[in-house]
């Protein structure tokens, strides 16, 4: 049986990715895993951007605006990872832990 891929299929997968990423951020305790989940959320947005761009055509040409944003998201995510990992490494070197429940010296 052959079914045509529609916009909704892409959006469903993207929604799934976003939800998995969000759930991971909220439930996981390891900073590195949390950071991977955050990247997953950005990937979810990228997927639906491409899908919206592809299915939103004028005269058969996709709307490339969406793909422009996609490029920016990829680069910004890379910068974020570089800075983020540096901070996490610094934390690990000073505290020997990457568990979020250990990051609680401030209260009030």
């Amino acid at each position, binding site marked *: 049986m052959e079914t045509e891929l529609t916009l*909704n299929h892409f959006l469903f997968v993207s929604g799934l990715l*976003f*939800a998995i990423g*969000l*759930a*991971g951020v909220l439930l996981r305790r390891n900073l590195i895993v949390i950071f991977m989940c955050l990247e997953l959320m950005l990937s979810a947005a990228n997927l639906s951007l491409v899908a919206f761009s592809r299915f939103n055509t004028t005269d058969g040409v996709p709307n490339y605006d969406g793909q422009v944003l996609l490029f920016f998201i990829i*680069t910004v995510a890379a*910068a974020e990872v570089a800075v983020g990992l540096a901070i996490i490494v610094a934390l690990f070197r000073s505290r020997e832990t990457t568990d979020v429940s250990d990051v609680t010296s401030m209260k009030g």
Partner: protein
Amino acid sequence: MSQDYTPVLIQIVIASGFAVATLIASVMLGKRAMRNTVKDSAYECGMNPTGEGQARFSVKFYLVAMLFVLFDIEVVFLYPWAVVFRENVANAPVYFWGMLGFVFVLFIAYLYALKKGALEWKS
């Protein structure tokens, strides 16, 4: 575009439910239940383990890897630019100088990393 996205919104609710359920299941059924300190300790022929199980990476490794990722990913902008280069650059040199400026900023960043010794393996 006026398609009806409402089913998608419902799907997202289902998706989040799915994600949460999977994660909770993995925590409950995972190996945490079958774990204790004796089991987790390194086995070294009856000797008490000393030091850490894994050797630590040098921080230099992270530094070079991160710099690679950063400089690597910027190429992303060169591809679409190269694609439209031929049709656009002839009537508007701003496309050329714009990209040159972008690469120049990266060059400054490279000089900075070089001078600060971020690319030296031995120190």
